[in-house]
């Protein structure tokens, strides 16, 4: 039988994969995707906990997070276009001139 912990474990693994994706940090596009995966991992946790308590709040959170993620992606992709047109690359090492 599938229990809450199954969902939470999937969510944890997904989150860790997302962190790996962010740490590899070579391609800007992949970086946005990886952040998106991490948000989705949180969403699974919210949805599963919502079912566990029989409480609708968790679904509301997941719904809000979908909206927040969409707006983040919109601004991020806008930046990506600007950078690509100007620099012709998505490589973070080339884009980051400043040290730090």
């Amino acid at each position, binding site marked *: 039988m599938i229990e809450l912990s199954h969902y*939470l474990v999937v*969510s944890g693994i997904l*989150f860790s994969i*997302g962190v790996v994706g*962010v740490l590899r*940090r070579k391609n*800007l596009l992949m*970086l946005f995707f990886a*952040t998106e995966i*991490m*948000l989705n*991992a*949180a969403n699974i*946790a*919210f949805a599963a*906990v919502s079912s*566990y*308590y029989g*409480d609708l*709040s*968790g679904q*509301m*959170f997941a719904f*809000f*997070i979908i909206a*927040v993620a969409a*707006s*983040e992606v919109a*601004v*991020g992709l806008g*930046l990506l276009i*600007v*950078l690509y047109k*100007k*620099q012709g690359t998505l490589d973070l090492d080339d*884009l*980051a*001139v*400043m040290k*730090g």
Partner: protein
Amino acid sequence: MIWDLYLVMPLALVFIGALFLMLFSLVKQVELTNYNLVTVAFLSVSLIIELIIFQNVEHDYLFETIFAKMFIVDKLSTLFNILFLSGAILTLLINNNYFKSRDYYNGEFFALLLFSIFGMMMLAHTNELITAFISIELASITLYVLVGYNHHSPKSSEAMLKYIILGSLAGVFFILGVALVYGVVGSTYLGDIYSYLIHHQNSDISLLVVGMMFMMVTLLFKIGAAPFHSWVVDVYIGSPFPVTMFMATTLKIAIFSILLRLFLVDFAPIYPLILEIIKVVAIATLLLGSLLAIAQTQLKGMLAASSIVHVGYMLMALYAIGVGSSFAASAIIFYLISYFLSALGAFGILSFLASDEEKRHLSFDDFKGFAHERPYMAAAMTIFMLSLAGFPSTIGFLGKFYIFMSVVETGEILLAGLGILIAFISIYYYFKLIALMYFYPSPNPKKRFPFAISTLLIVGVALMIVWGGIGTGLIPFVAGADGLLTIASEALKTIGK
């Protein structure tokens, strides 16, 4: 009901202003100054209403029948709102010349600024974690765009790139933390976490503690504390001057508003578990921030790095709260106000100079002999530097004094000693600027004091800093430093458990 409408007016005005400017920016033949004035008008009316509210409000859930208990109005939130609004008004007025001297500003800039302020104000009012997350995102996403607003400069785009990547990553940690907290408590109201912890003292709370840690990570990132401080200098240097000024002064305060609410109430039962971490973070922030500040060659970078050090002092006071200091919380608010004034003035002078002379990158060398060129501005700059360094007779000294007192009160003499040591180190990089301004001959002839709104406001802020430091006893009936401290502690009293 009418009273509730009155309480929601400041927020509504800021939002209406944002909508108005968004539509207004489609009209072509409007001068930039007019956009600026319209924005300032909306913010000023909002500020006046907030000042009246501050006198009368105690602790109130706004529209409780509609919003449940999510929208809290108390003295703390009102005080923070006053700070955001006055910070934004001063930023806009001081930078008016700067906006005109650059060609990439337009009406949308002001609309985005208002959206950002709306997010911060909402953050101060929120009583629920998801609303807090959305407000943080609203304040940050619009700030990302503002940081990257200068499309001529690759530096600006790069600063935005760094900020958006790291900022959204930090946001994810907050949301995961909320997910875990919700999984244990079954609610995301701030007070409910506290009552859960009180009623389940013997049960296993590791999931909850991990969730709260994740939330702390995000908040520490957003204020620029130690392991997560590397973005601060790059982003501050890369963004346009007005945006740096806005970020340095208001955003930090906004994050502290939610951090204080969480820390004072919900984290109270688990202080033993997290205090050591806070202490280590505070010490690391102080040391690493000082090292960064010494290494900077640009003045903007030095101010950015020193803002990390100031966060370190406030984290020290946060630790003192946990150990049981009675007035550490008001000391933090007082310190926020004093840092707010000093940083506002210092960044204001920088952007005033940048609007005046196109070519200047404002490294330290550009300030050689500045006092002979512009004696009044140099005097104001000296006051800001003294206040940031915590020199007696400025408001910055009192801020540091209260923080060290609260740490000493808890018996952590060593920690207070470290803080004082760091304050002495900070004298090095602040006084370097003062020495450069006064002890070198000026290459340019002396210029007259330019009478404009921006310069008068800068001088006004400088006078306020001195007045906050020494003027308490001189003028009766007006709040000086003691008054501010009373206001801060009054504001804190209204946080309900």
